[in-house]
């Protein structure tokens, strides 16, 4: 059975790759993931916002106490050195490259255009095989039009593509007014792949304390439906690759994703829950299913249920549940 697929210019033996997660900080775990057959690994994002936050925290809560009192002009050894920059992340890129032989895809989330470009270059220099741009941020302003935001995203991708030679994927949110159009623009900007979709930090409410609380919710298979729809819509229209992330927990989920048009299938939650060996298991189930259903290659299956090829594409194009006569459908 030929499960091979092509993603970001890499010829992968199968579509299963490890999505962005903190798992990359445990090198032994990463090694086990590779041994379990991961075709590639995506690092979690280097966040400019986090670094900026960290910087202002140091200024407010460490440096502001310095040089205030004669007996203690500081309170920490090397407090100045505790300015987290991208260096730790870059070092981790290098360590991962030394640890595994599969492609290492770094991920980046910036704020300023300059930082996006500068850090993309540093990531390339550190040895990453590809870069996934975690392009989304939460628009809270009611004064910034959607077009401006899209233009900024477009600009970032375009700039980065001018400065780096490694392939660039863009991880998107589903919240774009015209996702196909925006995807097209990203392709013109030079994006090599789209990753659908980011699952954001989703704060919860503690109703006793009346507090918004931070909450880590792992994905489940029901999250997949949104992704299937958009994979199906986008597949076959552009030359860029598509990857799915968020909601692949079973072989069936992966099959659906490929059928909808995914070139690569990213997994995180299922691996966090079941451990690296699940990667081997799911791939086997995937392969068995294909054999049982007499598929000969992944290519044969890829995009078969996309908007272009599905026997009943009208369902993919419909936004609302409608009660209409079965026979009036077409």
């Amino acid at each position: 059975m030929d499960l091979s697929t092509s993603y970001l210019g890499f010829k992968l033996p199968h579509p299963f790759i490890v999505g962005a997660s903190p798992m990359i900080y445990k090198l032994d775990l990463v090694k086990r993931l590779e041994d379990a057959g991961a075709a590639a690994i995506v690092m979690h994002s280097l966040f400019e916002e986090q670094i900026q936050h960290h910087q202002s925290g140091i200024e407010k809560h460490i440096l502001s106490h310095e040089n205030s009192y004669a007996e203690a002009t500081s309170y920490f050894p090397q407090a100045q050195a505790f300015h987290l920059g991208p260096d730790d992340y870059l070092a981790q890129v290098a360590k991962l490259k030394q640890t595994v032989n599969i492609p290492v895809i770094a991920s980046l989330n910036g704020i300023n255009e300059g930082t996006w470009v500068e850090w993309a270059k540093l990531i390339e220099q550190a040895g990453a095989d590809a870069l996934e741009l975690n392009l989304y941020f939460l628009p809270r302003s009611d004064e910034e039009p959607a077009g401006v935001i899209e233009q900024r995203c477009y600009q970032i991708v375009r700039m980065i593509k001018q400065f780096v030679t490694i392939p660039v994927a863009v991880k998107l949110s589903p919240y774009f007014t015209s996702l196909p159009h925006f995807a097209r623009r990203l392709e013109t900007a030079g994006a090599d792949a789209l990753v659908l979709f980011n699952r954001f930090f989703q704060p919860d409410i503690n109703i006793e304390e009346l507090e918004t609380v931070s909450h880590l919710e792992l994905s489940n298979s029901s999250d997949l439906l949104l992704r299937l729809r958009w994979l199906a819509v986008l597949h076959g229209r552009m030359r860029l690759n598509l990857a799915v992330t968020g909601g692949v927990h079973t072989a069936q989920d992966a099959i659906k994703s490929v059928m909808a048009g995914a070139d690569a299938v990213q997994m995180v939650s299922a691996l966090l829950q079941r451990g690296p060996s699940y990667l081997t298991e799911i791939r086997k189930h995937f392969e068995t299913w294909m054999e049982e259903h007499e598929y000969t290659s992944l290519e044969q299956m890829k995009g078969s249920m996309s908007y272009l090829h599905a026997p009943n594409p009208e369902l993919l194009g419909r936004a609302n549940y409608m009660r209409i006569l079965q026979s009036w459908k077409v």
Partner: protein
Amino acid sequence: MKHPETAITDGNEAVARVAYRLSETVAIYPITPSSPMAEWCDEWAAQGKPNLWGVIPTIAEMQSEGGAAGAVHGALLTGSLATTFTASQGLLLMIPNMYKIAGELMPFVMHVTARTLASHALSIFGDHQDVMACRQTGFALLASNSVQETQDMATIAHLATLESRIPFLHFFDGFRTSHEVNSYVQITNAELEALVDEELIRAHRQRALTPDRPMLRGTAQNPDVFFQARESCNRYYDACPDIVQETMRRFKQVTGRAYELFEYVGHKEPESVIIAMGSGVETIEETVHWLNATGAKVGVLKIRLFRPWSLKHFVAALPRSVRSIAVLDRTKEPGTLGDPLYLEVRAAIDEARQDGLLPDSFAPKIIGGRYGLSSKEFTPSMVRAVYNELANPKAKTHFTVGINDDVTRLSIPWDASFDIERADIKRAVFFGLGSDGTVGANKNSIKIIGDETDFYAQAYFVYDSKKSGSVTISHLRFGPDPIKAPYLIYNAQFVACHQFTLLEKHDVLDCAMPGGVFLLNSIYPADRVWNHIPREVQAQIIEKKLRFYVIDAYEVAKQTGMGGRINTIMQTCFFAISGVLPRDEAIAAIKKAIEKTYGRKGESVVKKNWEAVDGTLANLYEVAVPALAESEYVRPPVVMGDAPDFVQRITAMMMANKGESLPVSAFPVDGTFPTDTARWEKRNIAIEIPVWDASICIQCNKCVLVCPHAAIRAKFYPENLVATAPETFKSTPFKAREFPGTRFTIQVAPEDCTGCELCVAVCPAKDKKQPNHKAINMAPQEPLRIPERANYDFFLKLPDPDRLSLEDNVKGTQFRQPLFEYSGACAGCGETPYIKLLTQLFGDRVVIANATGCSSIYGGNLPTTPYAKNPDGRGPAWANSLFEDNAEFGFGMRMSLDNLRDNAIHLLQGFASELGDDLVKAIVTANQGTESGVHDQRARVALVREKLAGNTSLKARKLRELADYLVKKSVWIIGGDGWSYDIGFGGLDHVLASGRDVNVLVLDTGVYSNTGGQQSKATPMGALAKFAAAGKGLPKKDLGMLMSLYGHIYVAQVAMGAKDSQTVQALIEADSYEGPSLVIAYSHCIAHGYNMNFGLEQQKLAVNTGFWPLYRFDPRRGSAEESPMKLDSAAPKAPLNTFTDNEARFKMLAHSDPERAKLLATASQEYVKKHYALFEQMATKPVTSVPATTSNTASTPA
């Protein structure tokens, strides 16, 4: 051109760079101002930096300076090249070992930042009292006078000790030299290699104690031989001066810098000479040049090697023309004929004459002066005053200079307006707050100028003694030649005031030079600022013809995303208008420095800072100065008119930064000061203060409990009293059935609050409709200041509720008057709420022994003290002795109080017939373990007084004097973990073991907070601290567990933020227990590296993760059925990292050494689990072996 190896650091760093490279073992202990040298060594070792021989020195922090001295002694004896750093009391603790090290002729150098000794008061500042207390130890004493010299003399000491075998104490003035930042030429490794004689090191190794060549050191000797053996070292001392001189010669060959043991500078044929050592010599030298240029014939003889004193070299250096000599001592020896250097010089001249080294005709007048105690300024004008005195035929043989001694009339006058500052030296003075980054920005500026230009630079920083809202004054000089001016700037071409409100409190422009530039950070624009500044300041601007600039730095910071940090902005202003560098060049230099600092942190950080620079230039305006000073706003008086006389005359002067002008007669002769003074110091440092919303409040009083500054208070009072309240005074019915007809108020002290927000954080009451609105919310202070001041005054005058009517719980305790208020502790301090609670509970009957540290600084650093009095005039009586002796100090108080009580009982029993047996019996057997018990006893004692009022017998008089001792006096021994876990542990152990009724409160921050966060044995595993730059590798010592094993000690571990009711209970139980008690209180601290708003939250996490189990071990409970140990917190509910991940002290290690961080985090988690299990076991299994003592009588020494 400057030398290519020119660096710019402070004296401590210059010394550490040499000591580290030339040492193999370093034993350290924190003490101001020497700690930074040890910190550098620890950091370099953690970074893997090698010494001159390619090996990383072994660094170890000891439990005290005594321990450090012992450790280096052992290291030396076994062949190591060892060093240590210390000062003041620390040096005193080393003296026993110094005799040993010298007696054994060990090559060794200790570097000492010469500091005042604690006598009538502690002082962290500089003089030679500590060093002079070592002149008899057999150590060589080598002085350096400037940052350059600290490096050079450190080197010379390390070299000369190897050859001479005499150990060296290399010293330089604490703060003035240790903390002065100045340009100097660094010594390179190649130069050091050229200077070090490996053969001498080999010889040292050969003498080492080793089983391969066994020998014996440290014998005991008898009258037959000790004397002779002691004399056997003489020739080493005889040879030492020549060795040092020869080392100086070789040093010059290699580096080009020349030094002499005794070095004369000045007129070739001087008539008057000053002899001195230390940084003051630099001032004298500069003044000598100035005076000689005007025709004077004066000079200065610098003393570098004070011990061994070389008569030969001294005589050779002393000019023969001299007619009068003033010897200046920076120390005081009460009762002596003269201070030590004076006596030495007198004896030397006399002996030289007697031995024919000087002619009989050489008979100059010799006078001795004392100057500069505790870093008292020593200026060119004072130097001139000394020369004037020498020229005076009626010169005082003994004098002081720099103060006004109106009691013993020893002081000589000086002309403060005399000034020798060079025109080509740019001088700038900056007034700022510690928290606004002024000092940091100035350090950065002088680095820029020192590194990027051909200028030499000098900086010295003055801090006040507060830990919150502290004022800093930076003194910066820049010039084309090396700067020798170890005194403050009195004539600045540039003065900046980074905080508008400082104009109200400080005479900022006193130091401004006519025609200079004045920069003010002002919310008022250039066209409106004039009428907002005090009239006094207007007058100075006009009179001195200052060019006046304003910037709204906070606005620029806000606009450019810098938050509240104005450092870069004010720094830019300085470069733009001070004229130190051409403007464009200066701005380019700042931008370059920003890029260098933040380049790797992402464009946003650099961009933000660059934008701040540009935004600054666009918002910096010159003010058109009117011709007249007619502001209606004049500086308010420092304290209110109703303040006591002492506060008005003396405290207020210190508060206004004018303590310098107070004469000797102003001060108590024995260091006794009144309490209840902090309330006169309205500091107004909070930008925002809490505002109470009565409609939401659930009246839990938690905000009052946690306030570190007693600046938010609760009261309930009869409802009719509210009729006369100010208009904005808030009041609501008191929700308590047992107090009908009363109203309740939470009131903020608007001018005392520090704005820490702990009250908001702890407030559990939220508005249902709008949960971001609590019962306590922050609002800008300025508009509230006046109305809330009136409200607070009204609130304070409302009657306090009857203490006996209040329950012993969180709410009840918070209606009691705090007798610890408005301290200078850090905003959000985790320690002070415990002390405040203690004073609410027992303040009217407590004597406090306070170990040196944060709590002694915010408790007793002048000008004011937070310890207050109740309306009866009672309140905490407080004293600080030392760092190491606090438990013993408190123990002594207990012995004394008990004996005075016994005296009173003895007398009382003698009056049984007059007073009635029942009264006497009631007094003697009274149970005073409760509030009402104490109250009743006071009533009985009052009755005794009343009954004996007419009795004029001696015994009756004595009983009246002592009767108050019949009322319980609680002794509380307070200190931090540095004291209790480390330096004072031996004493603490002994005192607790004694069984006496003392109570110990340990404010446990897990570091030596006051000296800047050095590790103690209370530092948790995995935390990074100074002296543990590689992360602490072992768990925190469990002091409570250790002490509970005695069985007779009440031990509690508390964390107010986690379970406040348990804290209240523990303090009450500890005080009531008639034996020793130990309460260990978790105290969050700025040295933990997070937002102090979350201090209470972190305490909760510390408990929930099992890091800090809460318990009370009460020996009164010990029985077969019930364990004395009662756990007050549940088994760990969350992983340890939910606590540790929030604090920089733990996260820093993950950054600097991820592998080690991971290892230690795992080990810590494991430890916490096991540790809790141990507590659980103790709590569930009754311990039957506990001695059944609950009384101190059981332990009275036989």
